[in-house]
């Protein structure tokens, strides 16, 4: 039987603009926080393995080999360290590979660090760099971008299920309410439905990005890092840590066609559904067991669509739950308690790790006042790579 894997340390920088800083320094800050949280800073050279999640430091920062740089910044030689790159799902992929390293018996203590500095380049360039994850000949070369696919997906969903632009704004208002209370969030500000949908200035405040997606339907471009210390809960070494572990009950990933146009039903996010099913099976759980979720809302439509693929709501019905407030922090099923990518921000390589940090904070009862879920037992995150072509899901448990 594979070892049980738990999280004993978490670290997180405030997402936002860190473009004056070196990526390795920013990642080292989050990693040091995670080690201090676990009471393991002085023993850091006893860590068996470091996995670093990053999508595109070569393009954003003209910097490669960031795993090596991180090790030196933290005076951790000769601990082995490798980079995991899986687009915007790099973070959860690194968590999965960290889990596999422990479950395989090759490691007992693994540090996972995700980070990205995107704002060293201008917004147009950042959009271009992110778009390189698309299929080169058939998507990127056409001029398509991720917001473009988000817009086309949203239009299909609207025409099939009756979603409105106001519904998208309601998701954003909910997420900003949470993000405003999250000390790590990029945009720590609320927004009102009047300002971004109902009021006379809404078209100006909330302008179109990729119709029908507007500015408040898309996440900001962010810098930042997050880190987790994983441990084999069945090893004698598990007793060395200051914090009680939060167990990783399920972790899984799946893929879908790289070209979005080749999906039989472009409204179905197969990789999300399959990764979720595998994670549920591993955990011995189903959607009704999950207390709250962190879902990859790079575009708010994805929060809705992912929540349906995971079985939290019927297909085409999630926005009706949003209208009733069911996904708010005090609702029946809180989603994106951190503020989500929409408000907390989306440094692409960090996001999957950051989502799991939020699961741990909620399960430990350490979230800020006003955004703590009541007595959560299981939290689930989904980290969405490409436009759904490579997705990883994580379920954490408070035992």
């Amino acid at each position, binding site marked *: 039987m594979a070892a049980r894997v738990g999280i004993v340390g978490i670290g997180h920088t405030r997402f936002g603009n860190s473009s004056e800083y070196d990526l390795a320094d920013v990642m080292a800050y989050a990693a040091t926080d995670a080690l201090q949280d676990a009471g393991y800073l002085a023993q850091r050279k006893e860590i068996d393995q470091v996995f670093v999640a990053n999508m595109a430091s070569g393009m954003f920062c003209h910097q490669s080999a960031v795993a090596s740089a991180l090790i030196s910044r933290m005076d951790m030689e000769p601990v082995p360290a490798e980079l995991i790159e899986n687009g915007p799902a790099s973070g959860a992929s690194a968590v999965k590979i960290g889990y596999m390293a422990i479950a395989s018996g090759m490691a007992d203590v693994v540090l996972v660090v995700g980070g990205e500095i995107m704002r060293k380049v201008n917004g147009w360039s950042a959009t271009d760099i992110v778009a390189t994850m698309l299929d080169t000949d*058939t998507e990127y070369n056409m001029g398509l971008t991720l917001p473009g696919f988000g817009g086309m997906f949203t239009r299909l969903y609207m025409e099939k299920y009756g979603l409105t632009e106001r519904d998208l704004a309601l998701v954003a208002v909910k997420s900003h309410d949470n993000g405003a209370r999250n000390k790590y969030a990029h945009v720590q500000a609320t927004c009102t439905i009047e300002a971004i949908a109902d009021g006379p200035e809404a078209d100006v405040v909330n302008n179109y990005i990729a119709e029908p997606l507007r500015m408040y339907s898309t996440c900001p471009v962010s810098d930042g890092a997050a880190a987790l210390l994983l441990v084999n809960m069945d090893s004698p070494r598990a007793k060395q840590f200051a914090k009680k572990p939060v167990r990783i009950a399920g972790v899984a990933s799946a893929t879908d066609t790289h070209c979005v146009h080749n999906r039989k039903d472009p409204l179905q996010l197969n990789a999300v559904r399959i990764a979720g099913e595998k994670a549920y099976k591993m955990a011995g759980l189903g959607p009704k067991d999950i207390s709250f979720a962190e879902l990859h809302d790079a575009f708010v439509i994805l929060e809705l669509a992912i929540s349906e693929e995971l079985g939290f709501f019927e297909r085409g019905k999630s926005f009706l739950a949003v209208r009733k407030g069911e996904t708010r922090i005090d609702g029946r099923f809180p989603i994106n308690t951190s503020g989500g990518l929409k408000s907390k921000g989306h440094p692409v390589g960090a996001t999957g790790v950051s989502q799991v940090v939020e699961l741990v904070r909620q399960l430990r009862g350490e979230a800020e006042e006003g955004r703590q879920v009541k007595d959560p037992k299981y939290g689930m995150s989904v980290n969405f790579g490409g436009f759904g072509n490579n997705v990883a899901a994580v379920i954490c448990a408070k035992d």
Partner: protein
Amino acid sequence: MIDFSMYDFQAPKISAYRCDTCGAIYYPAPMICGKCNKRRDPVTGKSWSTFDLEGPCTLLTWTRVWNLPEGYTKKFLQFGIVQFENGLRASGRVEVEEPKTGMKLAATVEESDERPGKPVKIFVFK
């Protein structure tokens, strides 16, 4: 004497691919046929054939993008996904004033030099 007529303008084309073993068609081409597992050699093209992907198509969805990446100087561009009569689908630009899902369009191919580097072939659905 040079016959300049030999150098007539060649209209840009985008190719789709057919596995000659089982007849399955693809855009873009895989390296292995998803139906019969026949390998495709990208250099010789042996056992596979190509055909121009063009002509009538139906618009499945579309968007108007206002935050274009570096290199694009237009205020906005429209993009869409279409389905051809042979069932293949493609993404590309949409150049009609009022796009509507389900509308019939014609796929054309143009060269784009908006980004740095060599010009690339793009679909323009009109």
